[in-house]
């Protein structure tokens, strides 16, 4: 849409922005990206003293509840310690749902902003993903504390976690771009998605071990990209080993596909955002 060298802006009806151009525009707005991330984090942690501790406390409380429920009420055989099994994926799932939902609301919410200043529109989904990743890293601190308390071994494989988070982050960004673009057009997308996340949670072996799935439904779990993606974060912690090659491969492929599809849809729809915001 816009050709913008240092100081000349050509706003031409016939011009269509290419991906490269949009990326250059994003690079030029890197300080805006940093500011958005800083804003997200300050708003989250500043308001109350417990803001920061809440990120820590939240998984601890969850762990207590779920350990009670699944150790005393429903027991899954061979999942020990359950808290580590559950949390190592649940924290990532939390990151995924929170980031995608926030991206949807934030794009619509920042709509007023986009009518008043010229910013690359994808900057909101990107900043939400980055602040989500920072929160995710913080949320792993109490998990390590829990592991120490439960005497679960922490193996060198945990050094794979940054790579795992990166791949999961790319996938999440792709989904965020896709959903947030649709959410600008249709306000019910975000309601439908919130129901869908509950389905997703049960379609992914997060709270239960994959061994309880009857063989005839196993393909559903296997076809779900989240199964592989989240395993990237669980294996180094719960099993203390690197994820298998095919898991990494499947995850990288889903991440790249999600990003490309999300980007293309976002890019296509972004041109007419102003009519809907």
């Amino acid at each position, binding site marked *: 849409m816009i050709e913008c060298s240092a100081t000349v802006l050509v706003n031409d009806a016939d011009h269509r922005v290419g991906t490269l151009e949009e990326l250059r525009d994003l690079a030029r707005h890197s300080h805006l990206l940093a500011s958005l991330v800083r804003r997200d984090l300050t708003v989250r942690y500043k308001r109350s003293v417990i803001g920061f501790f809440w990120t820590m406390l939240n998984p601890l409380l969850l762990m207590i509840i779920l350990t009670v429920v699944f150790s005393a009420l429903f027991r899954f055989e061979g999942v020990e310690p359950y808290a580590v099994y559950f949390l190592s994926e649940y924290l990532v799932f939390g990151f995924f749902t929170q980031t995608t939902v926030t991206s949807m609301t934030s794009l619509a919410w920042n709509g007023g902003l986009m009518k008043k200043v*010229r910013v690359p529109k994808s900057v909101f989904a990107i900043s939400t993903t980055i602040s989500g990743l920072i929160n995710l890293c913080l949320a792993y601190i109490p998990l390590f504390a829990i592991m120490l308390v439960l005497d679960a071994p922490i193996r060198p494989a945990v050094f794979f976690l940054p790579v795992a988070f990166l791949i999961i982050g790319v996938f999440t960004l792709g989904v965020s771009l896709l959903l947030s673009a649709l959410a600008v057009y249709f306000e019910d997308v975000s309601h439908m998605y919130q129901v869908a996340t509950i389905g997703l949670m049960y379609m992914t072996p997060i709270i239960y071990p994959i061994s309880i799935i009857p063989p005839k439904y196993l393909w559903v779990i296997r076809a779900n990209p989240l199964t592989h993606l989240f395993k990237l974060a669980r294996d180094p912690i719960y099993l203390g080993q690197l994820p298998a090659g095919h898991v990494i491969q499947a995850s990288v492929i889903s991440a790249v596909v999600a990003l490309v599809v999300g980007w293309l849809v976002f890019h296509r729809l972004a041109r007419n955002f102003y009519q809907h915001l």
Partner: protein
Amino acid sequence: MNQTSIQFRNVSLDFKLANQGSITSFKEWAIRGLTRKLTYRKMRALNDLTFDVPSGATLGIIGHNGAGKSTLLRIAAGILQPSEGVATMRGEIAPIIELGTGFEFELSGRENIFFNGALLGRSWGDMNDRVNEIIDFSELGDFIEQPIRTYSTGMVVRLAFAIATTVDPSILLLDEVLSVGDQRFQAKCNRRMMDFQDRGVTTVLVSHSLSAIKRICNSCLWLDRGKVRAIGPVDEVLAEYSDWVEALNGAPSGGEISARAPA
């Protein structure tokens, strides 16, 4: 001085409106789409605009509500893309379509200075150099460390104006933002506008206040239903506009209803 800062060539903008009212639900869209009952009509918000703003000039834009004034400003800011034609802007642009755009009410005034600067394309370091000047101009004093939600409306507006006009643009686009604060602060804003003119900043000002336009601008564009009705020296255009408004008000009502563009 003889260079043009803003050049519009046959710029038009259409909004697409669904004939069925706006469809905001995915389910509805899917059903309509499947049954092929989805039709659109075009609403022309800007119609074939051609004009130049020379470097250093101050152009006022007047016209009725819905004449397309804000839309024009958004095209100049690069926020909207024209449906036809080309708009070329030479120089660094600071659009102030609305004061307080992007303020985060949980953050302090100081933090908002940096955040707002980033929205206007300024880096942290850039804003760091200007932060004291902004705080001085806004007259907020110690309040600058408080979250903006504790501010009065006047304080928010003062801070916004201070930030927007301290970023030192070479093209300033203002939408109806000069009537801020009390009389004294308004005088201060006016002085700042004069400073801009002295420094050769090109300014485009949308306002309903004909007196503000008369005071600040040296040329004027009258926009009527998306078309340029008149452009030229400020006195001439204002006189023409006033005559027209008088004639309208004298005439039996009904002739005045203009097509409203979405703001």
